[in-house]
């Protein structure tokens, strides 16, 4: 099951998140949902438009960093918020991510917008597997 929580007592001015999943795909989806939950009430966002993206990294933490950096970039580039993330991750020498992400164009009059996310940071950044769960902790710059 994928889930995320906001960690209150870390990085006062920014937002710290712990995300979890039974698989890497769930972990990446939970982390993306958490990132957009900072910016918008996802219940208002319809999965109308699809974007695809492909990433590769030799390290799993590097891949999660790249993934979050990419969806934050797409938010500004496409002027969109995203609510659904279909992800496939394969490993050979490197990790490969293929994703279809769904959302819609930002409409300030209709979406309940929150705080913009500027970037994913490396501060206290970690990804690990424990008791059959994938867990990550990361801090978003607000």
């Amino acid at each position, binding site marked *: 099951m994928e889930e995320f929580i*906001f960690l*209150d*007592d*870390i*990085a*006062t*001015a*920014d*937002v710290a998140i712990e995300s979890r999943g039974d698989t890497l795909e769930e972990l990446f989806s939970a982390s993306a949902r958490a990132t957009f939950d900072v*910016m*918008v009430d996802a219940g208002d966002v319809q999965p109308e438009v699809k974007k695809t993206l492909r990433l590769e990294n030799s390290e799993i933490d590097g891949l999660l*960093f*790249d993934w979050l*950096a990419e969806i*934050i*970039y797409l*938010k*500004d*580039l496409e*002027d969109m*918020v995203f609510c659904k993330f279909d992800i496939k991750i394969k490993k050979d020498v490197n990790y490969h991510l293929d994703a279809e992400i769904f959302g819609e164009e*930002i*409409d*300030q009059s209709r*979406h*309940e*917008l*929150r*705080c*913009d996310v*500027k*970037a*994913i*940071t*490396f*501060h*206290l*950044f970690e990804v690990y597997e424990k008791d059959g769960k994938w867990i990550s902790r990361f*801090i978003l*710059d*607000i």
Partner: protein
Amino acid sequence: MNSDMKINKISDWVWEIPKTEKEGMLVPARIFASDTLLESMDKGVFEQITNVACLPGIQKYALCMPDGHWGYGFPIGGVAAFDTEEGIISPGGIGFDINCGMRLITTDLKVDEVRPRLQSLINELYRAVPAGVGAKGDIKVSVSQLKDIMKRGAEWCIENGYGWPQDRERIEEGGHIPGADSSKVSEKAISRGINQLGTLGSGNHYLEIQLVTIENIFDEKIAKVMGIREKDQIVIMVHCGSRGFGHQVATDYLRVFDKAMKKYGMTVRDRELACAPFKSPEGSDYYKAMLCAANSAFANRQIITHRIRESFSKVFNTDARKLGIEIVYDVAHNIARVERYKIDGREKEVLVHRKGSTRSFGPGRRELPEIYRDVGQPVIVGGSMQTGSYLLVGTQKAMEETFGSTMHGAGRTMSRSAAKKKVRGDQLMKTMAKDGILVKAVSMSGLAEEAGIAYKDISEVVETMDVLGISKKVVKLKPIGNIKG
């Protein structure tokens, strides 16, 4: 205060963590704070400022200003100067919002003239200065124009009708820092930022209409030099940065530096402090790209100033020139700059990183425009939207003690989610209206996160640096209208 580290009291308001407290510290860490402010600092501040003290080439001390709080990499309020030959540059010492900064603008209007039209003014400014998630600017520029803006910053705006000739000398570095090189910026950064010129952003960014009250003028003579002439005068403050363009430049280079660390055999205690020698190809490229973002932030605040002039002109049906809408100054508080200081009796070139810290240059410094060279640099310190802000002046003491630096704001004490648990945006709006402050915000939850209770007492923060002689109080400014993302 929540730290196991030994923190020695050097004098009232100055504290020091000795080099022996953490393996690898090259210099001690110095924190400027009253007893209360030190007590309220979270443990991240002490961890982070001592991590900074371990970075190669650091000079004298790793410094933390009284608004210091837990950030990423450097603490917010962190200042460090590195030898330009032997030292490093780190994106984590500048922040993702490159050249986030403050601009203060005067008017000739009095509060009695503005109050009756305050709601129209707020509505007009809210329309003219897009804010919040998904805000796009209404100035369309081509890629080659954006590259020109990266090089010429506010100068480009003035030449293209978004400013007045006298604005040039009222912006730090004339609104364009030499050395920017657009070939060091990615296509991603360009595509991310090209539609965002003239937008405010979100989080703690704001555009505020403020009031000068007579009891809040601390230095009448310097206030006059800075354009604050009388009680009840209305001024405008803008807090924003380089938007998605700067955020992407920083993200791109954080990855470059993360990899370059291995190449240079360097390690850091926090991955966000990834760095490279300033004179290395990676360090030099980042510096040139960072200046592109810094110049675009000056341009962003310049376009917003133009929109402010248009909005006031429309609401008061008078030419903006006749309303005296003049810039006092514009200061960066997330940046690294090459500067010269006397260190151990010798003048030396250093790269000063300021992350959530403002320059506080004293009189005579050559970087200052002629209009302020005799009195010192205007220092603009933004407080929370409920408690007010300050205009201060830089001093010679700052040049000697803090690499010409001081605080940048009040500093948060409460996390965003904790603030939202205590305050609701709509209720806060009503409370502020009762206190005579009209607010218009894109996001109600974003508004709650910025409630005054989430911040330190700005007067105590400012008092710390005033008593120490690092930056002297000139005027306190009271908010009456606020626009937020």
